[in-house]
């Protein structure tokens, strides 16, 4: 009896949803590129505006990264003030997922189904994007410049996703190349956070060791984000005889391990991921981080000759309440690349045309020179090395290729 009524409900729900799908299909024609001159029928594109969406943490422990969403929105305001793109204003829908993947799912479904966004731009978080990856691909929603360095979204290439950051693996390889060629270091330890991000750094180090003769990893030390005490880790790396330590973790744990190492008289060369090399590092290590090296694929606030930095700094105060900071700059830059692709997609853009336009970006000058093609959606694979001197990270090399 129970089974039968359950079946009845299922059947009617199914019938209803089929009906709705049929209606929906009738109401919204497919968004394939129409003949030249025809109005775009892509979701989110109307005569007056183009709706785009983004998600990330605006509240909660990771709220600091939310500034990149504000940077994107500010760039949209900046463009709208100049008349928008081909006569259409940009409308940015921002969803706060508090960095929780379960919330990302709801937020993305809302943006795709209710708000009918044309594309997602500058979204944050490896786990968050993983949670909605299949859904977005099924719905053919372009994700322009996701803000994570996890390479897994492009293995194999995802036709709808374009990476906004250099892969963590490539960043580690740049540092290892620098360590070998310039610092003449052979014995490396890797101190990494026990998650996708940390393992990306470790993976890169392993790939580098396979390519660089004589280089070896003498200690792989994982920590958990909840760890309070890192003394055993520092000791382990000292004991292993590491001459350089790659740190793939938060600023906080990077600082803790650098401090602890100094305490026990362990003074290797420090090679830090871009995430670890936060502006607070000098203060948090009480000076012990002086001279640490880090990898940077993009220009930052102090590179005032860069066209994006210049534009951001000139307009930042007008469109944003706080800042300037490098997180906002990242969002501004992502918005800029999206708009460039949108312009190239023609007067009546469709999602397919947007993707094709992204793939035409060759040595396009953003915060870095970005390159996309139909074979490669990663964008940036070269970076230079900076060194912590006082309170700032000073550029000490030219671009090094991390894709070896």
């Amino acid at each position, binding site marked *: 009896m129970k089974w039968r009524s359950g079946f009845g409900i299922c059947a009617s729900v199914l019938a209803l949803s089929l009906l709705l799908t049929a209606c929906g299909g009738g109401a919204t024609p497919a968004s394939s590129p129409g003949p030249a001159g025809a109005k775009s029928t892509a979701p989110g594109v109307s005569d007056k505006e183009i709706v785009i969406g983004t998600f990330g943490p605006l*509240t*909660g*422990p*990771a*709220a*600091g990264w939310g500034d990149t969403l504000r940077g994107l929105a500010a760039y949209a305001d900046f463009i709208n003030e100049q008349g928008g793109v081909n006569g259409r204003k940009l409308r940015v829908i921002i969803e706060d997922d508090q960095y929780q993947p379960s919330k990302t799912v709801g937020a993305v479904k809302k943006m795709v189904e209710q708000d009918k966004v044309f594309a997602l731009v500058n979204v944050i978080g490896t786990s968050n994007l993983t949670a909605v990856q299949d859904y977005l691909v099924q719905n053919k929603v372009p994700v322009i410049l996701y803000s994570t360095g996890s390479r897994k979204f492009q293995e194999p290439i995802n036709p709808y996703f374009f990476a906004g950051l250099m892969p963590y693996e490539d960043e580690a390889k740049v540092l290892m190349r620098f360590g070998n060629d310039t610092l003449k270091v052979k014995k490396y330890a890797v101190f990494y956070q*026990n998650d996708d991000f940390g393992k990306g750094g470790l993976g890169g180090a392993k790939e580098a060791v396979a390519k660089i003769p004589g280089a070896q990893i003498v200690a792989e*030390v*994982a*920590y*958990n984000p*909840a*760890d*309070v*005490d890192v*003394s*055993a*880790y520092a*000791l*382990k790396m000292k*004991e292993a005889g590491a001459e350089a330590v790659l740190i793939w973790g938060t*600023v*906080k744990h990077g*600082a*803790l391990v650098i401090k*602890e190492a100094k*305490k*026990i*008289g362990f003074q290797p060369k420090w090679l830090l991921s871009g995430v670890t090399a*936060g502006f*607070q590092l000098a*203060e*948090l290590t*009480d000076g012990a981080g002086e001279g640490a090296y880090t990898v940077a694929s993009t220009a930052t606030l102090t590179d005032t000759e860069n066209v994006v930095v210049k534009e951001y700094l000139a307009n930042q105060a007008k469109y944003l309440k706080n800042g300037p900071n490098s997180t906002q700059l990242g969002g501004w830059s992502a918005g800029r690349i999206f708009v460039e692709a949108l312009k190239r997609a023609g007067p009546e853009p469709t999602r397919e045309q947007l993707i094709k336009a992204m793939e035409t970006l060759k040595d396009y000058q953003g915060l870095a020179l970005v390159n996309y093609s139909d074979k490669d959606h990663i964008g940036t694979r070269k970076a230079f090395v900076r060194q912590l001197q006082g309170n700032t990270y000073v550029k000490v090399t030219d671009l090094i290729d991390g894709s070896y």
Partner: protein
Amino acid sequence: MAILLQNLLGGLSAGALYGLAALGLTAVFQTTGMVNFAQGDMAMVCTFVGFTLLSYMKVPYGLSLLLVLAFALGFGSLLERGLMRPLMRQPHVSQIMVTLGLAMILNGIAGQIWGFEPHAFKAPLGGDPYRFVGLALSKDSLLIFGISALIVLSLFLFFKFTLAGTALRATAQNATAAKLMGIPIGMAFNMSWAVAAVLSATAGVLIAPSTTLDPNFMAEVGIKAFAGAILGGFSSLPGAVLGGLFLGVLESLVAGYISTELKSVFSFSLILLVLVVRPYGLLGSPARKKV
């Protein structure tokens, strides 16, 4: 050998932090008969107040500490009067729920005020660690050992030999009987929260230099402190410190000799094992719950 000793020292230094935080938990347990989950976040708020005084208002270190402790006294008292007093007659479960809620509220507010980025907090002593035959131990770790011992001793004396201490314990055991004996239980309750806040603030300002300060910094220590307190016996003050130290050393040895990734898994498994054998902890006495 030097490696083993350095691992032990590292473990003891971390364990001292756990033990110090655990002291606050057990002290509240002894005086109110409940677990205060907001202890860590109260410590966090007090530490941020100290941080504001030190870094923004440039108040000297010693004076800042005194002001923080004074703030904590008022803060704890206020929380009790505003939040806990109305619930005094409610079951402990409800009170514990309120402390959980309070923890989240404090965390959220602190995040809005001070942001979620980590800050450096000034260490009481700082400077180079003591070094001997290749071993290193920071002066602040020693200070934390000393202060923990001092707190244990003074609380022990307070509970055992003063009238107020006895009154607090009596209130925790049986509020009605205590009231009948003429103990102003509202005041007793208030006092225990004020003391708890002062203990939490002490822990906060001493722990923050080694963990960095952000709104979640005590959450990480707090879990370990909780485990340490349970291990040592929740009803025993020296037990709390000992449990914390034990956990610190255990983690350090597991990380050093077994696996860094499984540090917590191994340590907590061992704690479970200990508790199967001694459910009341290492130094605790079997609970005699009076109904």
